[in-house]
């Protein structure tokens, strides 16, 4: 090895390693400082928790060429309008429930998790729930006891996870709020529930 060449020397590469690592890390810090405000709740991409008081749709955006969530008219969850604090408390209960019941080791959320069960990112908008009139009741019943409901011909069934009424409402609130996040068009070509009046 031509050890006397500058490009093959140990010290050149040591310095390069240090500068490249430091530079990348500094760039990451700056990008993080720019990204975090853009994904804080209440931002354009990640709406405030009180978005659960509104209708949410998933529509094709002609300029961005992706489907994006559209926040529509007032349509409070379970027919009751919540303040920002109440909405946050309910969504928090829902997310805590999804974590303590280990949902992510079967389902994916925002595409991350396991693949044994469907993605929950836009599940609030899924056609599976029939019509928007029966959706909330169906979701509550399903979350509380899914075990006797056949999901598919393979017999893959979600277990009953001792979820209380209030926790189930929280989970629905969390799912509704999550469906309002702008995920850059993921999942692609999603066919959402019929919501026209």
């Amino acid at each position, binding site marked *: *090895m031509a*050890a006397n060449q500058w490009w*093959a020397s*140990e010290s050149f*590469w*040591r310095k*390069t*390693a240090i500068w*490249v*690592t430091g530079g*990348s*890390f500094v*760039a*990451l810090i700056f*990008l993080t400082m720019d*990204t*975090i405000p853009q*994904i*804080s*709740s209440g931002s354009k*991409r990640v709406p405030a928790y009180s978005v659960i008081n509104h209708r949410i749709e998933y529509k094709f955006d002609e300029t961005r060429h992706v489907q994006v969530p559209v926040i529509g008219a007032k349509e409070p969850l379970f027919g009751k309008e919540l303040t920002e604090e109440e909405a946050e408390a309910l*969504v928090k209960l829902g*997310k*805590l*429930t999804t*974590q*303590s*019941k*280990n949902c*992510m*080791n*079967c389902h*994916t*959320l*925002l*595409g991350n*998790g*396991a*693949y*044994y069960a469907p*993605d929950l*990112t836009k*599940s609030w908008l899924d056609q599976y729930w029939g019509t928007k009139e029966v959706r909330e009741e169906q979701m509550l019943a399903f979350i509380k006891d899914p*075990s006797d409901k056949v*999901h*598919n011909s*393979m*017999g*893959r*069934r979600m277990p009953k996870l001792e*979820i209380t009424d209030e926790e189930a409402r*929280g989970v629905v609130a969390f799912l509704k709020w999550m469906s309002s*996040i702008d995920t*850059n*068009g*993921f999942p*692609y*070509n*999603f*066919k959402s529930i019929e919501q026209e009046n």
Partner: protein
Amino acid sequence: MATLGMLDSANLNGGQKLAVKYFTVAIVLFGAQVLFGLLSGLQYLYPDFLYGVLDFSVNRMVHINALVVWLLYGFLGSVYWLLEEESQHEVVGLKLGNLIYWVLTAAVTVVVLVYLLVQIGPGKESSIWLINEGREYIEAPRWADIGIVVSVLVVFYNVAATFSKGRYTGIAGVLVLDMLALFGIYLAGMFYTTNISIDQYWWWWVIHLWVEATWEVMVACIMAYGLMKVLGVSRKIVETWLYIEVALMFGSGILGLGHHYFWIGTPEYWFSIGGFFSALEPIPLVAMVVHAVFDAGARHVKNNNHPAMAWLIAHAFGNFFGAGVWGFMHTLPQINLYTHGTQWSASHGHLAFFGAYATIIIAMFYLGVQRWRGGVWMSGDLPGNGWKWKWSLGLLNLGMIGMTVAMLISGYVQSQIERAIEGSSWTGYFAAQIHPWFVQGMWWREAFGVMFLVGFILLVWDLLTIGKGESRPMQVVVSHD
């Protein structure tokens, strides 16, 4: 000095004695990982199997957590293994190191028992503190998180203090800084937030920056040490390569983080950053293949530990294909839109973790067992022509490649039917899951999983018996320091 052919801890230095303990737990957890992987794979085929007793969520959680923890044990063991030789100094704070080993192992046992017996809790923060956090890969309850940070911090202290009292080599410098990052980045995953976008943003710091940056640099250090020990490559060459690999790995890996920020709510500029830097991520892995294969060739594959050398080469290729090729295959946003969160991810995950990490730790196991038996002969001409290590090498690698390809085929079907055609709806998901091609992929995955298990059993058998009663001392490889 040494008693050849007999397991005798008098053959080991202080750090190596501790390393053997770490390696032992690592192998046990490796076995648990394989077992729970087979159980969860079986549930794809027979969903009623253990339904309501050990559900898929539990089995899969144990499967992936055992993976993370056994690799961590493997790394910590490897670091203790090379510490005294590298620094030419006794491990500072060895007693504390031993104590922390027992504390960590007790904690891991409690966590696994809680996973299996308690499983879930109410939707309160107390569940996250005591049962599990419900966040893929870092499910460990918060109390255990704190324990892990303290443990890694103690190992970091031992390593840094030992090197600063003894010889401070190039490997030492990289290792110390890497361990600092190893415990520092873990902190990013240790809080609760209701905002799932922010939650996932930091979650990826732990998952990606650990796995695709600090762990890769950790294995580069171990590889450097391994090539010096097994092949006798000179330190100057090895350390120059190490710096090259660190530059390429951190240079591509830190901002390569962006490929996880496509769909979690983050701004669109991550498309370009993530796409560009993750396209660079395979380059350091190519460098590593060149490094290992060139050195082996330059020395006419003359080495003092055939199984370890074979696993080092398996690592170089496994890292390149699993992490590099299989990762790059679906890392660009145009493709990732369809493949993210499907069996493609599982396919990549399996080959990458095995190829990049499991392989090199197995190489360290062989280095360990050779020294533990007093530095026995482990070159050619082993009794039975070394059939056990050769078969286990073959079965583990073939089993893994088989699983990977099977899941990739299922992944193709899934991304076509569920994503492209059915638009990711609930019914689309199940339409893909019941498609015969998908199901066949899952069958092949399970079959190759069994092959992997056989390879694992052979590996354990071989590690327990190789060099037993061997009277020849190990071949000397000449290092030109």
